[in-house]
């Protein structure tokens, strides 16, 4: 069974970027254009890796992270961000509440995206 990746980002260019990067990688990739929709998808299906934007209309990335962790899934979540100052503080609070996540900085190219996904989903193979 193919590993399931979910990209939650309100920007279509970003969602498309992930889709194209993973085209032949052998993963099932799904996208959601808001936090709410992303949470629904996680509730409906098993997800192995989530890429999450911070700045989104509706509920933002930090709130989405909080609700996803409330669902009690241990799924790895990568927050893809350009380090907006206003969200960093909230993110800091999330760390203090014990919510686990990783951060990668935006923009990010296809090679790095693949490298990251492989190391999370298949262990640190080929990751130096």
């Amino acid at each position, binding site marked *: 069974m193919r590993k399931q990746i979910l990209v939650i980002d309100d920007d279509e260019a970003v969602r498309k970027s992930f889709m194209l990067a993973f*085209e032949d990688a052998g993963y099932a990739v799904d996208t959601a254009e808001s936090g709410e929709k992303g949470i629904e998808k996680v509730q409906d299906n098993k997800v192995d890796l989530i890429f999450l934007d911070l700045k989104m209309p509706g509920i933002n990335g930090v709130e989405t992270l909080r609700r996803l962790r409330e669902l009690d899934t241990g799924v790895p979540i990568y927050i893809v961000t350009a380090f907006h100052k206003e969200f960093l503080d909230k993110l800091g609070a999330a760390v203090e509440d014990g919510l686990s996540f990783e951060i990668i900085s*935006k923009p990010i*190219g296809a090679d790095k995206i693949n490298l990251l996904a492989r190391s999370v989903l298949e262990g640190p193979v080929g990751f130096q």
Partner: protein
Amino acid sequence: MAKMDSSEMETVIAPKAGRILIVDDEEIVHLTLKRLLEPEGYSIDSSFGGQEALQRLETGYDLLVLDIRMPDMDGIEVLREIRKREIDIEVLILTGYATMESATQALNYGARGYLMKPIENIAEFRNRVREAVYIARLARGNRQFYDALVSGKADSLLIDGKVYQVPTLRQENKEIFQRLMEVIPQAVGLLDFDGNITFANVNFARMVCQSYQDLLGTRFESYIIEEDQNKVIEAFTRLSSGQLVVSIAAQLKTRFGSFLSVIISASPIHYRMEYRGIVAVISDTTEINTVRGKVELLANLVENAQYDMIFIVKPDGQIMECNFLARSSFSYSQSEMLSLNIRALFKFGVDERWEKIVDAIEQFSRWRGELIAISQDGTEFPVEITVSRPANKVDNSATMICFAQDIAERKQAQEALQKAYRELQESQVQLIQSEKMSAMGILVAGVAHEMNNPMMGILNFSQYCLKHTSEDDRRHPVLQDIQQETQRCIDIVQNLLKFSRIDREDEAYQKESCTVILERVLKLLSYRTGKQSITYHTADGTPEVWMEANGIQQVFLNLVSNALDALERREKKEIHVDICRDGEFVQATIGDTGGGIAPENVQKIFDPFFTTKPAGQGTGLGLSVSRAIIKGHGGEITCESEPGIGTKFRVLLPINRRKEGAK
């Protein structure tokens, strides 16, 4: 009269005759005085004690030269006895410095003056004697004539060998004598031994506001305020014991309780060998006291002026008076000052020569300017000086008043103020600059953030296309270019973001070695290095520095990659980095053998968006970001460059400064 100006004495034509008795217990004094005086034509006798002298005096002398201290009786005693016996004679006291006080006291008992032992000025001594003898004879003649006039007992008199007619005094003249008492402005009172008033003129009654009829028989001291009463009674006692005149400053009290400042002069009245009472003359001194008080007040004001050196000078500049501050500022004594000309105290320039100042005062009544003052020890200080000619109602002497103020402090304050003002202006410029930068930072951050997502799109889309294009396809390298240029855009945006939030980030501080950071940077840049010779050296004992390591790494990265850029078209390709301790700082210098920076650009290289790199190769942010990071650490970054030789950047980082609030 104790002493007279010698020039005045010359005008006295004294007869070179007269009888003199010298009283002294020392033989040598007699010998000396005789030798000095006999050539003058006097007949001179000697006594060696007071008692003997008194006996001899009965035989009639013109002058008694009297020693103040003698074994049998002192000079004062002799004087008292002379007055008591109404012996008509002038007395000069012989005194040394030791008995000066008694000699002065003797003047109150009728001595004419004193002669100092040893005698230093013979001419003066002779003059004094001549004068005393002359006055003795004159007074004796005057008194004889006056007695004859008043008593009417003689119609002619023989005085000094000459016969004088005595006019008859008519009855009405006696009344006029009595009226005389009333026209003199002083109050006159006659007192008996106990101090009761036996006679007074009407001015007396007016002065104490009493009716004349109530005045007679009252006690004199009852018109004096209580505090002064004892002083007056004591003075009167001295009169009864032989003193000839007393002068007392006292206050009268009037019937209505007001006070009057007066001088009471009193003398004993002897008549027919007996002490009969006292005559007291009272002068109102209120006005004099007021004027004197005012003068003293003004003199005090001038002398104690705190900020003004005050000089009174003649038009030729001669100093006539000056105050304390003037003397102390110039380190001259009062007498030194009075011998100086004002021109010696100030450096008068060509345009401020003293003559010109005087001319200016003639025209405009005052002159004001700044001069350099020179004190006695040669120190110079700046003064502001005002010279004016006061309106003088008393006489027309053309004195001038100079007020000078030491303005050294004021000048210093002015300079300090100007400096502070300049600094304020500079810092204002800096503030405006940083305000601008911060406003721009916010704008840049906003734009950069918005660009992140589309950038990510372009990057990934071009990578996708590249992946699906055969390397043989001629579009392949173009797609590679797209990818590369997109990466550049991303770098620019990252730099902009870093720049805009440089002082807002609370990055973690840690202790780190600059050398470690440098090595990491060189590793990161290894893809670019090859032909260049990069050397670095760290001095022994260079400590670690509290730093935000990512920031410092960024700085080193910028500086080393700039150096690499500078070496691109150079033959000599060398970079040398030196790290060492400099006091409380660690210093890192990064030098290259590049083409250097044009002098006009050295000032600008830290300005945001300033770049000399070809279009598309630099953002112009590297150095301004670097400077912001270093400043954030409390450090400093400077640049020295010599066109054609190379450029050296110097970074100073404080060793122990932890950013406030750093976690």
